[in-house]
């Protein structure tokens, strides 16, 4: 507790006077001149120790005044017959007073510096506490702010990463996957409860339903007399808000859509995306732009899938595996090589042969053996990095790896071997582990004369490596039997 200077001075004065008062009890020597010690000095030193130098000085002055005046006052008012010998008192007080003054100064200084340090310390603690409280409040506010921002960011539906993740799902050679990816992305960004994608069929001249979400939809639509046909024919976007601006579109048809976009595969019209129902609060220019972006980005993937379908899937395929044959492999490899010639972009060929294929045929069935090939092709094509075909023999598949060099092809073989090993317990592979021999070759994309020559050398090299690989397997298997 802090004591004010006035209070300390008063206390010091009272203490000093009290000594003078005490002297009245010794009628012979009220100034304690004959004592071995002078209480006036001791009290002042004590006061200086507790209240500082100034209070000590006040105490010694008060004690001196008290000692000097009180006996005379008491004598005057007749309270006590006390006489003080001022000469003896001054004589006796000379040395104790000098020492007392020094002691008061020392004790007072010590006390003052101590009090000052305590005061400083307290001030520092107060300041720290204030700062801590402030920091705590700031932290609480920061935590709440971060929670709120966390919530807002976490709830973002139309962020660039979310869009990218959706777009990546369209990166497939399988048309159904691309179309489903496009529909899912459009639904995710619009929260549509009913949306459809129609593909234009050039043979029938109609729009065929490719994907849908929500209520059942017409599987086939004419180009004339349907909103989707109108969008496709005019290559025009439809939006409900501008319904009055569209000429040649019946009001009944227009009410079948909120938003409709023509969809392209590369540069060419491919089909239509129609969002039939979406929440009122999602229908705004931002959502419209988001979906337009999705449709634009999908065009490259649709083009890839369309090309794959035309180049590979439209030709006769194996009834069990669904894979195209050797002739298609030669044609597609020739096209891939020609596409990369002179551009220093690689294309690799990997031949995979299931060892013990005949055993599977005899132990189980021919269909099971081909199913194991199908499974192998599915595992290999999982990342859409390759095109799979049947090769010369039943036990062999061949993969074309566009844009992948020899190192990448080696890694592909390792990963495929590992994935096939993991998938071994699958029914398609049977209960026993499947061993696969690989042969690979790579074209680095340099200038060429005839694409057929490169194709021939690629196949020859891959077959040579496959032969070596099979020899190693055979050697290992003989060594195993020998042991």
């Amino acid at each position, binding site marked *: 507790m802090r004591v004010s200077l006035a209070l300390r001075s008063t206390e010091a004065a009272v203490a000093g006077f009290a000594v003078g008062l005490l002297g009245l009890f010794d009628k012979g020597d009220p100034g304690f001149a004959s004592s071995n010690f002078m209480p006036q000095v001791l009290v002042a030193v004590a006061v200086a120790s507790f209240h500082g130098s100034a209070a000590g000085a006040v105490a010694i002055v008060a004690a001196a005044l008290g000692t000097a005046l009180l006996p005379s006052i008491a004598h005057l008012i007749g309270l006590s017959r006390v006489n003080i010998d001022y000469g003896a008192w001054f004589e006796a007080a000379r040395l104790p007073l000098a020492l007392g003054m020094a002691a008061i100064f020392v004790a007072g200084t010590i006390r003052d510096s101590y009090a000052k340090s305590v005061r400083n310390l307290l001030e520092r603690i107060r300041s720290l506490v204030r700062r801590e409280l402030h920091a705590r409040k700031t932290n609480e506010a920061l935590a709440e702010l971060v929670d709120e921002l966390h919530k807002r960011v976490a709830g973002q539906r139309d962020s660039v990463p979310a869009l990218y993740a959706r777009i990546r799902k369209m990166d497939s050679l399988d048309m159904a996957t691309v179309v489903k990816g496009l529909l899912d992305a459009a639904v995710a960004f619009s929260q549509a409860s009913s949306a459809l994608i129609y593909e234009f069929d050039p043979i029938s001249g109609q729009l065929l339903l490719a994907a849908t979400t929500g209520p059942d939809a017409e599987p086939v639509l004419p180009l004339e007399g349907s909103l989707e046909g109108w969008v496709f024919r005019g290559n025009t976007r439809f939006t409900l808000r501008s319904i009055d601006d569209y000429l040649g579109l019946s009001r009944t048809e*227009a009410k079948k859509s909120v938003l409709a976009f023509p969809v392209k595969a590369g540069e060419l019209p491919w089909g239509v995306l129609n969002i039939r129902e979406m929440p*009122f609060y999602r229908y705004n220019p931002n959502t419209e732009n988001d979906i337009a972006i999705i449709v634009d980005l999908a065009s490259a993937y649709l083009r890839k899938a369309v090309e794959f379908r035309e180049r590979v899937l439209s030709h006769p395929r194996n009834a069990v595996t669904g894979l195209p044959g050797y002739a298609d492999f030669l044609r597609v490899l020739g096209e891939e090589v020609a596409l990369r010639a002179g551009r220093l972009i690689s294309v690799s060929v990997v031949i995979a042969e299931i060892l013990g294929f005949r055993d599977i045929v005899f132990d189980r069935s021919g269909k099971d053996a081909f199913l194991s090939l199908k499974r192998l092709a599915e595992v290999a094509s999982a990342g859409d990095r390759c095109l799979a075909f049947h090769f010369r023999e039943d036990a062999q598949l061949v993969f074309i790896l566009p844009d992948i060099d020899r190192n990448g092809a080696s890694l592909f073989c390792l990963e495929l071997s590992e994935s096939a090993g993991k998938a071994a317990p699958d029914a398609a592979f049977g209960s026993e582990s499947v061993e696969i021999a690989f042969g690979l070759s790579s074209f680095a994309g340099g200038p060429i004369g005839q694409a057929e020559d490169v194709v021939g050398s690629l196949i020859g090299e891959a077959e040579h490596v496959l032969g070596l690989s099979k020899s190693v397997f055979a050697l290992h298997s003989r060594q195993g039997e020998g042991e």
Partner: protein
Amino acid sequence: MRGFHYISSMREFYSPRTPRAALMAAEANILPIEAFAYKAASVKPLFEEPYDLDDLEQFLAQPNLDFAGAMMLSEIFVAMTRAGDKERALFAAESLTSLEDRWARKVDEARRHAAGERAERSFLLGRSLYERALVAGRTAAIRDHYLREALHFLDEVFGSGTAGPAFALLIRCLVRLGELDEAEARLAPGLGRGDDGEVLALAVEIAYLRKDVHRIAELLHGKDLDGLALDEGVRGILSFWQA
């Protein structure tokens, strides 16, 4: 470079799951303050695929999870149940059940809530049932059942109203149930006054659901949207239609 030092050596430290946890750890000197900055800046949208199960779980575990958050989670979990991964589908199904249980408890609490006036109780119960219908109503039958129950409680007390949050909720129940004519008829008196932004927005929404753009134009013709008490987002959408 201090921040990069933390990032390069973060595996040696305790790994907080949320920015708040990182802040508390930094306060307790368990982590450097860079951990908080890193965590706060690393938040990603829940909608981003592949879905992050930890983030979803942590969001789901929030004690004060609101209706909008629950709807968002519900949408993500439903999408996950349709995906091929069985483990993730199981996680999503369990999470959906947990979410539905939470809203079922809210309805029970609202039913038990005895304090307050009858109007307040009915509104609370109606809102809980409406929210439950949307959170738990993956099938139309379940959703409609709860919506009808909500409508019943709201209609008892607010059936003759023309404005206010409870009345708006009642109209929303009708809209969700597809009873657009009924909803429009009930909105008519409030719409006639022309001073309620929410009533106007509901009327425009009904016209939109009918794909009746002329009615929307009629409703918004000459309206001073800035003068109506409207949420910023709703005002933006109405302005879009008015333009």
